[in-house]
């Protein structure tokens, strides 16, 4: 099976949409995990609350995966027969993958930093953890918007 240029471009787009937010989420989740471990050594009972905070920056990776999945579904890879894609269409698909790829990468890291800082809230004032979660969710808005942009662009491209 030989791939056309358009198909390759589209696949690179899908790969980036999965990979970059995945990297970001790994970094973000890692950041929170580090500070959470510090807290758990002091007070193991805070595990549940910390875990929620740690899960927050993980969503970008899921959004990226989602975008990548929709893309390969779009180009027919999942059904076994790749659709014929012109270079122009390939670039369109590539472009539509970019919002979540880029914003997912960055926002996951920033969100991780906010969530890591919120671990401090759990240690000192555990009853206020909802506020920390809200701060972190503020960052996620942009990942959600970019995912939406990616999806809408993707659905708008006709093959």
């Amino acid at each position, binding site marked *: 099976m030989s791939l056309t240029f358009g198909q390759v471009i589209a696949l690179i787009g899908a790969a980036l949409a999965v990979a970059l937010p995945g990297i970001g989420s790994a970094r973000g989740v890692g950041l929170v995990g580090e500070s959470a471990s510090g807290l758990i050594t002091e007070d193991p009972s805070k595990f549940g609350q910390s875990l*929620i905070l740690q*899960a*927050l920056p*993980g*969503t970008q990776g*899921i*959004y990226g*995966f*989602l975008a990548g*999945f*929709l893309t390969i579904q779009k180009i027919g890879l*999942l059904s076994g027969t790749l659709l014929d894609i012109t270079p122009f269409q390939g670039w369109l698909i590539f472009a539509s993958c970019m919002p979540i790829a880029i914003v997912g990468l960055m926002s996951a890291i920033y969100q991780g930093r906010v969530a890591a800082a919120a671990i401090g809230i759990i240690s000192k004032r555990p009853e206020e*953890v*909802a*506020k920390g*979660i*809200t701060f972190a*969710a*503020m960052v*996620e*808005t942009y990942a*959600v*918007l970019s*995912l*939406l942009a990616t*999806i*809408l662009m993707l*659905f708008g491209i006709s093959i």
Partner: protein
Amino acid sequence: MAIVKMEKMHLLALKNEQSKLMQTLQKTGIVEVIDITEDENEEKQGHKEDRIRDEIAKELAELEAKLSDLKFGIDFLKPYSKSPNPLIYGKPDVKKDELSEILSAESKIKKSLQVVFDLDKKIVHLKSEESKILNQIDFLMPWQGLDIPLEQLGYTDKAAFMAGVIPRKSKDKLEEKIEENSLLADIKVIGERRDDLYVLIIYHISGKEEIQNLFKEFSVTIQDFMGLQGAPSEIIEQSKKRLDEIQKEREAIKTQAQGMTQELFNFEVLYDYYMIEKDRKTNTLKLFDTDKSFYLQAWIPKERKTYITEIISKITDMVYVEFTEPEENDDIPVLLSNSKLVEPFEVITELYSLPDPRGIDPNPYMAPFYWIFFGMMLSDAGYGIILSLLTAVALLKFKLEGSGKKFIKMFFLCGISTTIWGAIFGGWFGDLIKIKPLWINPLDNPMAVLIVSFALGVIQIYTGIILEGYKNIRDGHVLDAIMDQGFWLLLLTGILMFVFQPLAGIAKYLAIIGVVGLVLTQGRAQKNVLMKFASGVLSLYNITGYLSDLLSYSRLLALGLTTGVIASVINTMAKTISGSIIGFIIMILVLLGGHVFNIVINALGAYVHSSRLQYIEFFSKFYESGGRAFDPLRIKTTYVKLEDL
């Protein structure tokens, strides 16, 4: 419904009936005693007054000491006991005669506390001994090969026997030097660790000075065994035996602690009993008293007024009770009262902040939105059913209390919403069970769902603005309501109507009225005419705020899609594996694990983002937070239930 109206209770009664009255009030659990000692003039309080206060303070200190001892006992015994988790199975009920039995056996309980202290001391002692022994073993390990008893090291008449540590790389050079100077010495390697060799050095006493100089040159350290006796291997052997003994002693302590279940229960009952007494005493310090009488101020829910007067009049006739409305600057505590369906959602507001006592309770308005949004974001009928089933089981089987119970109830209700939305979107474990959607599959037509999301957003934002307007009208600021909320509603409605072609004609006028109204009125706080106009124009900038609020609701679509797509990914993955019997088993495992993961991660997302829409988009429009929770003097226990005290 909403925020419970509070009134101030003023109670004047006789001193000798104080403790009886306080006990009764504590039992009812509906009054929050106000600390009035700070308001009163210091001079008014005579010496007698102080003496009474000191007495209570002394009693409090005694209680405090007892409580901390009991707490220690409980914390010590708790890990050893297998008592059921009170969070799940509820607190055990303690009847009156059971309590008096425990109270009468207090001296015995004190003795068992002493036993616990001794056990703890023993454990600490064993632990320090163990670490000492472990250090010793570690220290002697490299010397294991030395077969001379340690006390025999040192000088004899003619020779010296020294144990030393020498850097590995210096050993050969040292031996060369000894050879060169033809000294009578021998170096025997006993053991090694990292870069060091552990050696026994034997030399003739005649060469002592030179040898010691060489030691310095090649940084040989002479080991001091600090009075240890016997050969190292023997010492290690004995130490290990002692370690085994320590382990056995620990086991013995453990079995003894495990056998103290009844004692643990007694500690818990006593702890709660004294805690109640402490609460009462602390609140007694908030009263204002004279020689023969005392004066108490407390907050009480308005509707409980007659109930409390009845209760008090049963105790004594020599009492005067009066109720007053709260004054301007009073710090009114907040108690919420909502219908059964709304109540579980109070946790969402509580996690944000309680409402201002003079504001409005957002819960009745917030709850339906939260419910709808949660369901729309999780939006899978299968997941909804699982969520509701699990939480229903938890509610029926476990004796949950407080906010934990509210949380579970909320998830139960949200599970129902999730099921409904799942049916609307045709999501049953993703595409595992193919049932035609009641409306559409969002993957087929995301734009339609996006429009629904925005429509829900518009409704919620409008509700927020209208609530703020209602608050203004309620407080008598009708003009403010028209200018600050009315014009905005006009403008926003006008803009929205532009979307629908046939309405565009009216829309223009609505929007223009709104804009003109806003420009003319929003600067009314400014003094300068020019500034009035400038602020008015600038206020239009808020329109971007409303726009971004509205766009934020697009997450309803995005998170809904996430659940559905990930579920179908799991299904696709599972299907590709199936075929053989092993494949079938793996398929089932993939389906189980995958969907559990998807439920957890997306329920968390739905919870977080639905909360966020309330906190940021909805509450910002009208909500005044900053209330203080109503915390009445009541029978508050940690471990057991002491209802009939």
